[in-house]
């Protein structure tokens, strides 16, 4: 199980689904990521634990291409987040921490419709993808409801559905269990199992002391800007 996550130099060229190589990122004089190396093989789920402010969110933001590192490289199936932006993003699913990123006055189904179109999915694939995501996160009964009438846990399930709706091959989840009850956590577990079954991989950030989902293959600790 441990062999799924290797130091990047040990991974044979081109086999890792997601690679971070010598990634450095600072906020002013605060060095958040110091030469971070990580290589995720297909069908692998890695949890990254760390104290508040350890840099987990920054690591996921860099891995997703949302922000760019000062030094180092990120590759998803060999794709560069700047040069191959469209293809890179079409293979990536991302869930930010917290409960943001939803339009309070839009219905859940409108969010999913928008997400499939922004993902540039072919027309014939959009509706089945939306239905799959609604089913995966048990949102069928809620899809016609506006976000401001959903509970926090239901909103989190919608946010998760948005991260998975376009069938990404790599998923980055920042504290996905926030606001979720046991059933909700089971849905995340199932979605990650399905992802692994189709050869995808994921990074899941959890706070130190938080219980990682059973689907996780290995837990890495982010401390002082380095993965241990």
């Amino acid at each position, binding site marked *: 199980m441990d062999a799924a996550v290797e130091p990047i130099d040990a991974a044979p060229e081109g086999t890792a689904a997601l690679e971070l190589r010598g990634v450095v*990122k600072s*906020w002013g004089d605060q060095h958040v990521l110091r030469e971070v190396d990580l290589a995720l093989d297909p069908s692998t789920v890695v949890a990254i634990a760390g104290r508040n402010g350890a840099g987990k969110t*920054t690591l996921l*933001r860099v891995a*997703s*291409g*949302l*922000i*760019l590192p000062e030094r180092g490289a990120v590759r998803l199936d060999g794709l560069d987040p*700047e040069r191959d*932006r*469209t*293809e890179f*993003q*079409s293979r*990536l699913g*991302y869930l*930010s921490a*917290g409960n*943001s*990123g*939803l*339009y309070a*006055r*839009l219905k859940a189904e*409108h969010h999913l*419709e*928008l*997400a499939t*179109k*922004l*993902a*540039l*999915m*072919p*027309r014939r694939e959009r509706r089945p993808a939306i239905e799959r995501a609604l089913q995966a996160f048990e949102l069928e009964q809620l899809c016609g409801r*506006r976000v401001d009438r959903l509970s926090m846990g239901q909103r989190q399930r919608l946010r998760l559905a*948005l991260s998975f709706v376009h069938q990404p091959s790599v998923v980055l989840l920042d504290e996905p269990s926030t606001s979720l009850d046991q059933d909700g956590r089971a849905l995340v577990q199932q979605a990650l199992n399905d992802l692994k079954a189709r050869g995808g991989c994921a990074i899941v950030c959890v706070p130190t002391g938080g219980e990682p989902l059973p689907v996780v293959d290995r837990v890495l600790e982010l401390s002082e800007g380095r993965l241990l």
Partner: protein
Amino acid sequence: MRHAAAAGAIFKRDLLLFASYRARLFTTFFTMAVSLTLFYYVSRLVTSKQVGSPDEYYAFVVVGLIIFGVLTSTLSTPVATLRAELQAGTFERMVLSPFGPVRAIASLLLFPLALALVVGVASLLYAAIVFGLDLRWETVPLAVPAAALGALAFAPFGLVMTALVVLFKQTNAGATLVITGVTLLAGVYFPVALLPDWIEWASQVQPFTPAVDLLRNLLVGTDLPDPAWVALLKLFGFTALMLPVSLACLRAAVARSRRQGTIIES
């Protein structure tokens, strides 16, 4: 086709959000009606060599108000929407989508422009029905492509404003400054010929003056200061020159914000 669907989805989202506040539609049209009514009575006081009779001034100012509405929607609304997106964390999904942040931001202009055009048509109808505005019906259909060209020529200003939002997060002052400047220099409320010579050149180096001149001619028959092709050439030229420049500015702003890590606020 998929890119058009994505842009259309952003348009639909903005329409749904607009429609979710029921009072907004009413206030939009109510404000328009009050403004047209106010200027009708002001126009009764106006008679001069430059603007002609009160009715001629009213026709002049109605078209100016419509163009001003388009300008405000191009400059202010996308800026406000983008600010709200940054604060709500929804912009993150645009950045991380294959459609991408630059196209997504450019698509923010679509709904405000469409709304401004609808309000423009309603304004003409209101002014014609209630105050007897004399429309030049034979050329009114030509105003549609002319307005579309004008909107395209205004778009670079909106794109630059959104680029500034991406970089500095706050640009309300900038948008207000441009709108105020244009109001003064583009002949929205009075003919630019009334401006002092030393500043009149400024009315010729932006797309608003030829757009209002052209639309006034097509909608209410106001004489053009130059042949129509001159106004068209200015609008085409400005669009061809400034649209790529403004898109490059937006691309650069997004790239810089990603490098700095300030592309999102939440």
